[in-house]
């Protein structure tokens, strides 16, 4: 497997509390890697370390062969990291179109003219074509999530980090999101996808990594992982003596 992203033994502690103890995984070219785990497993912390919001206390992050552990948020974005937020954070007083332009202009250093053209394409393929001149603040939850993905896509990312993009959506909306993820993958982007709706993970990912108490428990094909004794123990609790 050709790894785009390699995470090696990262750990982070807040005071005496080790939130991530030691986490390693690889993300392959054009792969969708699902990350599951109960509350407090360290999923969001992991995402924040990957995007550079938090600095790990140990370990390193290798992106396309380069060590990026000390790079800032903006540098990582320009190198090809895109992300969505658990609670979407669109630029509410800007239109959908303008939101997506920001991705092109600042995430990919395009000239504004080219960024506009790309924004048109991206809003179209993500399914926001008829709402592109709406103020982002007026969008519903699904469209906000779409917009976040579109904005990230416009920055021409190599790796997209999804933070619970399917959370809070209805069944049919989730299948829309699954379609979008498939489409993103077809564009040649690798995805790290945190989610707690396990069923969605089973359908939408190539591999699943399960975290618990700050370390990886198991990593493998979705069906294998979901059926594994380890995951059941993590979620359902071990047999008490």
């Amino acid at each position, binding site marked *: 497997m050709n790894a785009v992203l390699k995470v090696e033994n990262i750990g982070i502690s807040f005071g005496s*509390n080790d939130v991530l103890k030691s986490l390693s995984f690889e993300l392959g070219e054009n792969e969708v890697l699902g990350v599951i785990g*109960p*509350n*407090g497993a360290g999923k969001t912390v992991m995402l924040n370390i990957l995007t550079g919001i938090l600095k790990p206390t140990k370990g390193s992050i290798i992106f396309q062969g380069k060590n990026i552990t000390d790079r800032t948020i903006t540098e990582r974005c320009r190198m090809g990291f895109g992300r969505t937020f658990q609670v979407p954070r669109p630029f509410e007083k800007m239109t959908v179109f303008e939101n997506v332009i920001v991705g092109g202009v600042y995430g990919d250093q395009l000239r504004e003219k080219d960024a506009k053209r790309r924004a048109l394409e991206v809003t179209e393929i993500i399914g926001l074509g008829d709402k592109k001149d709406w103020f982002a603040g007026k969008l*519903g*939850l699904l469209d906000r999530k779409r917009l976040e993905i579109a904005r990230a896509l416009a920055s021409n990312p190599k790796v997209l980090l999804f933070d*619970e993009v399917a*959370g*809070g959506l209805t*069944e049919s909306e989730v299948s829309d999101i699954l379609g979008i993820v498939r489409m993103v993958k077809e564009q040649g982007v690798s995805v790290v996808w945190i989610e*707690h*709706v*396990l*069923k969605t993970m089973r359908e939408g990912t190539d591999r699943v990594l399960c975290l618990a*108490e700050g370390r990886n428990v198991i990593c493998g094909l979705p069906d294998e992982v*979901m059926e594994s004794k380890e995951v*059941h123990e993590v*979620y*359902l*609790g*071990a*047999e*008490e003596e």
Partner: protein
Amino acid sequence: MTTENTMLAVDNLNVHYGDFKALHNISLKISSGSVVSIIGSNGAGKSTLLNTIMGINKPSDGTIAFFSKKIGGMPTNQVVAEGISMSPEGSRVFEKMTVEENLLMGAYLKQARQRKDERLEKVYGLFPVLKEKREQHASFLSGGQRQMLAIARGIMTGPKLLLCDEISLGLAPVVIKDIYQKIKEINREGVTIVLVEQDVKRSLKHSDYSYVMLKGKIVMEGKSSELPEDEVRDAYFGVNKYAKY
């Protein structure tokens, strides 16, 4: 369950966060003296349910009745005065205050102040480690000790109903066992308990009655000893016949 000894009745409760509907038509009953567990993976709406009972979240519609008094939408401090107390997720002890000051905060309300000495003695008896550390700041406590402090602080308010939100989260098995032991003792003294847990086995083992939540709905309920574990598991993961939710 007979209606006569129903302590808390939640009827058709709906809660929204902006566009997002967090709870769908939740109905449940909790009878006096029992231990009831609410099971579900994260995001299922368990904490939202507890927070709504406590008045931290406001219901969009539906009722919550405590001893047949409507408490839905009441401010939190009044809910506490009615006799419901909660040990919140992640303990949320007052880190800049000492252990004893944390406990005295539990005795803040007038009716609790009068019985503060007696209750302090009781919780120190229940959790001797807190007595040892009474002069220390809560920030120096371990995760398990914080959880104990949060529960003890809740008891200081003199509740009839104690809601415990994920009290085993991130703790070592030995500590969890200890804490559940204490919960049992507290229940024996007449306090009704609601446990919110991600851990199915533990929940079923320590409760009389269980509700299973999935995506903001209650998908299963029954006596804990009678619920088939693999069906709970299906409901928990939202697979097989529970996939429709």
